[in-house]
């Protein structure tokens, strides 16, 4: 079951590490912990007209978190923080077994749906991105 978790696409995505690193002068910074394991992500974001134009992340986490961070970096540009929050919400539901995959790029996480203890590993980067929207709202 968990061997399937570590299929080639996930390993490759984690290794790719798209968007790893920092921005020169980030406009917005969010940090987020996974309280269960101490994993942490830091997002640095540049917005224009309310849309993400650049996103970098520093991620200390497991393969699932790193693959998810890499995918976030690919999915974020062009979206608003509110759209990213919606993406996280739909990701949560999909992992829990309800609804469609929120984006085809995330379909590689399908085997994680059966492993509830790891849902938060996948979600950590998206939860951090969702926090951008909450900060905006408040």
């Amino acid at each position: 079951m968990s061997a399937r978790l570590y299929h080639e696409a996930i390993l490759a995505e984690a290794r790719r590490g798209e968007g790893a690193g920092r921005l020169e002068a980030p406009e917005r910074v969010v940090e987020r912990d996974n309280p269960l394991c101490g994993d942490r992500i830091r997002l640095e974001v540049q917005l224009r007209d309310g849309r993400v134009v650049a996103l970098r992340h520093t991620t200390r986490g497991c393969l699932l978190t790193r693959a998810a961070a890499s995918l976030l970096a690919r999915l974020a540009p062009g979206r608003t923080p509110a759209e990213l929050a919606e993406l996280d919400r739909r990701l949560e539901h999909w992992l829990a077994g309800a609804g469609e995959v929120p984006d085809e790029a995330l379909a590689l996480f399908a085997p994680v749906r059966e492993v509830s203890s790891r849902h938060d590993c996948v979600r950590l980067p998206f939860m951090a991105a969702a926090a951008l929207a909450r900060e905006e709202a408040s």
Partner: protein
Amino acid sequence: MRVDVAVLRRDFPIFEAQPAPFHYLDSAATAQICRPALEALCRFEGKARANVKRGVYRLAEAATRAFEEARRQVARLLGGVDPAEVVFTAGTTLALNLAAHGLSPRLGPGRRVLVSVLEHHSNLVPWQLACARTGAELVAVPATADGRLDHEALERLLDSRVAVVALTHASNVTGAVSDVARVARAVRAVGAVLVVDGAQRIPHGPVDVRRLGCDLYAFSGHKAYGATGAGVLWGRRELLEPFPPFLGGGEMITRVTLAHSSYREPPHRFEAGTPPIGPVLALGAAARWMMAQDWQALRAHEEALTRRLLAGLAAMRDVRILGPTDVGERIGVVAFTLESHHPHDICQLLDERGVCTRGGHHCAQPLMDHFGIEASVRASLAPYNDEADVDALLEGLETVRRILG
């Protein structure tokens, strides 16, 4: 639908285990556990134990899932609230202490906490301690002569000084059920918080806490057909959110350094350390069992038994009943005194005939003072009781008189 007690008792393993005669009339102290709760408990502890909330191996993941499923079952029992509003505790007592601690930032000199003289010590002492700590004033809401909450007196006491009102939903002595919805409207009007001790009410059927309009609601698993060791504090999310941490420890933090800790959101902030996992799973199973019952039928059954018990007692000379006589206003928790005999002597002799009752102050000394007595005998009913139980008690009282004169 009439209740077939013989069938219902099959759900309660104790009735197979205890030799007859066994007339268990002490469910208000602890109810008997239902079979699904016992099975959930013993299965988890004996066959599938792992710690919750962090493990990734399948056994640990299954434990975590079962734990969160128990939270959902309790959320359903409380009227379908958000499971994240359900905090698991060690019991009602801990839940109410958590409530008093969490609400302490609202207390201080010039602020008041109202409690009624009907309260169990567990819904009184935590508020005394909180008031002593913060300088707030504890004010007593009186009871009526027949042991009900005096709603008018409560309403007269409500003003802008009142920060918290802490009341029992049903008295563990008089059985009186308070009109919480009415109280909640009045409490909300003055901007105070309403804490309800549901320990005695929940065993008599599901409660829709949102409909009631209260803010916090506490109860124990062991009185609601679950196991000893677990209980619940439900709270409106907006209210729980700013509660300061109560117990410090593992699982309730986001990050700890030696100098500083930051805390998780509810309910986890209030579930420090390894929770009573087995008892929580039992509570979840008990909540599910409760949701599967026909409470209209069970309620009618209880009312009929209560009526029979009250009538039998009323027919005896020198019996004093400590609660309302209208069964529509009460649960089947019936306390009484015999003028010439002490409750302990009575209970001891009732046990002779397999009748289990409780004698004492029932952790409600202010209510005993209200009645001008030290102690009373209490018989408390649950769905598994029948007419034979009630009659054994009534006949037992005649024997007590014969032996003690």
